[in-house]
């Protein structure tokens, strides 16, 4: 039976400059599925994503209320170990940021930082994470080459592999294919379909079409409000809310 990995309860967020906020968001995220957060820019989807691994701690937040339960524990609790949280909840950003190191070092860096020194364990993590992100076949013979030499699509999959190497439970992706060509986009999307068997995935897509292609569950955000959340196949064929319908039909946005 499906269980909820994350439960967001009445979450509200205001930034210091008042530019973007979330208003009373309640949302459940199922284990081993892809949940898509979509909507026009400034809707709050990235803000919510950043709350889920406390990245918003690094920005000027005026106030945050409500709860985010990860396996029943409120991660907004000040006692939460943020480093441990970020290992459990990894993030991939819109633009791939590879470290100025070899492909292998990009992947082992986080584990070594966490204290893992055994070569066998590190090799295992490198191979496993590259296979899961569908990059292994392309780079297995040149792991010592600088990561920066990889193509944009490969770099993005390397960033995904870097998150996977830390064995997270949840993967957050903020428009991970916005800078990629259709073939690379296809590879990332295919990898996500495979990854959801092992992880819980939350994706902010770069288009409504990507949202429709990938979503097991979809949540539509508009001006800080969660307008509608439903199974993807339901939401993109017959949404219940007029505002969702207008948006997915390209009437605004």
């Amino acid at each position, binding site marked *: 039976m499906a269980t909820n990995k994350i439960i967001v309860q009445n979450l509200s967020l205001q930034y210091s400059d008042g530019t973007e906020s979330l208003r009373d968001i309640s949302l459940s995220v199922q284990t081993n599925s892809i949940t898509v957060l979509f909507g026009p*820019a400034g809707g709050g989807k990235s803000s919510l994503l950043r709350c889920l691994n406390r990245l918003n701690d690094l920005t000027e937040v005026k106030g945050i209320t409500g709860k985010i339960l990860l396996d029943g524990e409120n991660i907004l609790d000040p006692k939460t170990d943020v480093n441990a949280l970020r290992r459990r909840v990894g993030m991939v950003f819109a633009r791939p940021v590879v470290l100025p190191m070899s492909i292998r070092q990009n992947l082992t860096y986080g584990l070594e930082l966490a204290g893992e020194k055994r070569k066998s364990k590190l090799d295992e993590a490198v191979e496993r994470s590259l296979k899961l992100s569908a990059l292994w076949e392309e780079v297995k013979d040149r792991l010592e080459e600088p990561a920066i030499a990889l193509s944009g699509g490969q770099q993005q999959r390397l960033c995904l592999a870097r998150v996977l190497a830390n064995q997270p439970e949840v993967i957050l992706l903020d428009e991970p294919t916005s800078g990629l060509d259709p073939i690379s986009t296809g590879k990332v999307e295919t990898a996500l379909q495979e990854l959801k068997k092992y992880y819980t995935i939350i994706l902010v897509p770069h288009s*409504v*079409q990507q949202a*429709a292609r990938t979503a097991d569950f979809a949540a539509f955000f508009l001006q800080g409000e969660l307008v509608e959340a439903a199974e993807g196949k339901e939401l*993109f*064929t*017959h*949404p219940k809310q007029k505002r*969702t*319908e207008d948006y*997915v*039909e*390209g*009437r*605004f*946005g």
Partner: protein
Amino acid sequence: MVIIGEQRQGATAQMRKTFETEIQKLKDEMVLLGSMVEQQILGSVDALKKRDVEASRRIREMDSQVNARRYAIEEQVMIVIATQQPMAHDLRLLASILEVSGELERMGDYAKGIATVSIRMGDQPLLKPLIDIPRMAQKGADMLHRSLTAFINEDVDTARSIPAEDDEVDDLYTQIYHELMMFVIQDPKTIERANWLLWVAHNLERVADRVSNICERTIFIATGELKELESNYDKKK
């Protein structure tokens, strides 16, 4: 940022406009296809009634134009789906246009069937003067016309009310059936001519049945709900 936002809004509005133009063209094509089929149904029965074999031939030839129009609609729908990637109501509308254009083409095939009967009858006289068969054709064509108008306007109330009228067509069919059976019982030599008329009545009964499918799609487009609409006759069964 504001300028980018405005540009984006403008681009979205332009894309929407292109899409809506495409949809309007498709709706116009559907109306045209519907009126051709209506003409085919009424014309096929009229030619039969007048024993005008030449007119029956023209009706039968019209079928290839109907088919060509239906394929053109189908192709255009696919282009719109591929280029515009529609969702929600738009997607339901396009899927329904595919379905309904198929229904219309099938109705045209029934009219072609009636024309074929008339051609096969050659110069043989009708078994009896046609009264109820033209009524069936008139009723079927009228139901088709109103159901297609409701489809184009997404008029759910009308779409819900039309299938019940199928009972009237069914009653006429039953009446024709009994009447023709009486001829056969009284004189078995009439069996072939009776059978021809029964075939015609059957085809007209099927036309009215298919009108219900158009109504179902109208409700689906407007509400997302897809279920079979039953006539009162179906409910009693």
